[in-house]
């Protein structure tokens, strides 16, 4: 097998204005990952490269373009897993980093742990040279708009799935 790369950009009711950007985004990410494996790179290097490209694309809910919490902040989660030895690394509720997947890989490769969360994840990222970015650089106007609309209908995630779909904007999820 000469290497295979498959990517997704999230399963949800994607609004039409994001269709083209979403499609171009996943195509570019698949090409990116394929170039890595084609050049002799490892599967871990390829998934990191492809997902970083998706994180940097504001059309997707990850990295730049992440949605907002009720307190109007960005909290991101990421996972990397290698099938060779079932090694895994993850971060949860990390803030102010451009590429959470990069930190997840560092957790996998530089610690004996599987997951670091919150401030601990941010401290770990900083100690490994990951630059902290201003929170606003991760937030898009669409994310702000969506939060304002959501606030009219809900104060919890579960409620969003119990409200008539006609009342809600087209919302993404994990």
């Amino acid at each position: 097998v000469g290497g295979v790369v498959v990517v997704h950009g999230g399963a949800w009711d994607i609004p039409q204005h994001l269709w083209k950007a979403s499609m171009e985004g996943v195509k570019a990410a698949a090409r990116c990952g394929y170039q890595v494996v084609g050049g002799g790179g490892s599967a871990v290097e390829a998934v990191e490269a492809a997902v970083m490209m998706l994180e940097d694309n504001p059309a997707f809910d990850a990295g730049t373009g992440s949605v907002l919490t009720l307190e109007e902040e960005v909290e991101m989660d990421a996972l990397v897993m290698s099938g060779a030895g079932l090694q895994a690394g993850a971060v949860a509720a990390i803030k102010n980093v451009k590429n959470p997947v990069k930190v997840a890989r560092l957790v996998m490769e530089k610690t004996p742990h599987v997951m670091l969360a919150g401030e601990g994840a941010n401290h770990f990222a900083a100690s490994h040279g990951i630059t902290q970015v201003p929170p606003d650089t991760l937030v898009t106007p669409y994310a702000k708009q969506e939060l304002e609309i959501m606030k009219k209908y809900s104060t919890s995630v579960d409620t969003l799935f119990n409200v008539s779909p006609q009342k809600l904007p087209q919302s993404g999820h994990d």
Partner: protein
Amino acid sequence: TVGCAVLDTFCHTACATSTGGITAKMPGRVGDTPVPGAGGYADDQVGAVSTTGHGESLLKVCLAHHIVTTMATGMPVSDSIQRSLEYMGQRVSGCGGAVAVSRCGEVGFAFTTPRMPWAYAKDNQLHYGMHPRE
């Protein structure tokens, strides 16, 4: 959410998944994405999977591991994903999707939401889609 599953030229697999979560989530809420077996799973003996969807539902059924376990029975990859999504829908009413690659290089994808942009590269060809039945 975004994600990727890879089989490299050394026949090793890997997956990665990343998310900003869900709009208006409670601060501190964590969904399936960072949890091995829920947001993704990779095992060279079977393949690699990256999932997306309603995080609480995916966590409850350990969706990624469910898919890999189903793939291990020999079921085609896309069918394994579809079967696992149906199980999730029946047991906890959640929707979602996933992409996967087997240790033999078979690619699969499926989703129970209105859309999921996907793309895969194999044999120097790019395939892609977003809507059902594409």
